[in-house]
């Protein structure tokens, strides 16, 4: 599996979003899950909650640390990944598929353009690593 699949859009906060029509599926990147280590809890919002781009929509806790989750684009929560309640490790083992976190109804598709492509995100991660 590619570390950063080409069909996703990325943020500098290490979230990804997959856009299918008006629905966006959101999770954290392989780099983010690796930095966190073993995930033990994911705090997610309720279906129907509305967020503006960059708002905190939840929190992910690992054995060692925790991190806030930032929404890449504005929208309303349409679905949450219930499987993470019992199997938070899916975020580690499968960050781009089974480890997804929420699906939203995107309110402004124009915001997608401001996100990073896979190669841009990869460059960003590399620049972070060098620091």
């Amino acid at each position, binding site marked *: 599996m590619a570390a950063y699949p080409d069909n996703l859009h990325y943020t500098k906060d290490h979230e990804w979003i997959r856009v299918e029509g008006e629905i966006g599926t959101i999770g954290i990147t392989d780099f983010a899950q*690796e930095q966190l*280590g*073993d995930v*033990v*809890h994911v705090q997610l919002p309720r279906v129907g909650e509305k967020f503006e781009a960059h708002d905190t929509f939840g929190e992910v*806790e690992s*054995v*060692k640390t*925790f991190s806030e989750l930032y929404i890449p684009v504005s929208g309303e929560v349409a679905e949450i990944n219930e499987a993470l309640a019992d199997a938070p*490790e899916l975020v*580690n083992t499968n960050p781009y598929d089974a480890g997804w976190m929420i699906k939203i109804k995107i309110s402004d598709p124009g915001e997608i353009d401001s996100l990073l492509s896979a190669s841009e995100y990869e460059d960003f991660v590399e620049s972070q690593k060098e620091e």
Partner: protein
Amino acid sequence: MSQLKKTSLNEAHRKLGGRMIDFGGWEMPVQYAAGTIEEHLAVRTAAGVFDVSHMGEIEIHGPQSLDLVQHVTTNDASKLSDGQAQYSALTYPEGTFVDDVLVHRFAADHYFLCVNASNTDKDFDWIRSHASVFDAEVANSSANYTQLAIQGPKALETLQPLVEVDLGAIKYYWFTRGQVDGVPAIIARTGYTGEDGFEIYFDPRESARIWNRILDAGKPIGILPCGLAARNTLRLEARMALYGNDIDDTTSVLEADLGWICKLNKGNFIGRDRLTGQKEKGVARKLVGFEVIDKGIARDHYPIFIDGREVGMVTSGSPAPFLKKNIGLAYLPIERTEIGTKFEVDVRGRRLAAQVVQTPFYKRSR
């Protein structure tokens, strides 16, 4: 990262997917490819191996070695036989910690202290500053030793094929000189995980070979290399204190609930007067173990509240991978330290219920 000190196994850790972090000035693996939870569980159910070469070794030689050790530590080293070790504390006159240490007696005129990495220089200077009135020499021999910890219920069967001595004959907190795969080593039945296991000390030039031999020998039982994160969760489940978190120069040995290493009747030692006073009057606060009742993780330094008043803070807090609970240690006012006492932890603005519980949280079956 160029200033960080490296152990002789730095390259080996990287090859195993070790994620390296700055730990008190040392570049050490926080975890390997398997991850902290699997590493932790390997030690509870099979075996794990840790590079703990960052730990310091201070040796005391000379006819009055015992007198010096007795003067600077709280436990009674006169009770040790050759080949025996004890947990102890180096204390300031205030009865607070310079460090917590393992004292090994090689002979009446030779003691060997294993000390915390980041405290090595401080400990060495401290002991040496009190050595002048004794006929004893103090040496910092940390650079002479690689230290590996092989821990877990299957540590013995993993290590036995590599050594000629009968490991089963070494009692808990005893040690012997022997060879590991032909390399002279100190082999001690000690550890910091709450499991059976061994800590071995040997020439750093042999590190990579011995490390790989142990990993190979442990392959059939599923041994894993383990990083600092698993070391921390394992010691916390076993309620072993961590210097810098649970104990330091502001906390007394009695406040840390380590009265069992405080032998006030052994004769004079640094801190004895203050500790004797604390023992007579009672301490105002004590280190206790707790479990978070609500859903959430109390982490290091989170404040603790009782009846809306801040009364302390979490000194170590983490998910416990084997117990599958969220646990921690904290200093609480003495009147609030009874088992079952409820309090609140402020987890980033949320007040979560927690309660004082019996420790150790985890105790192995023998």
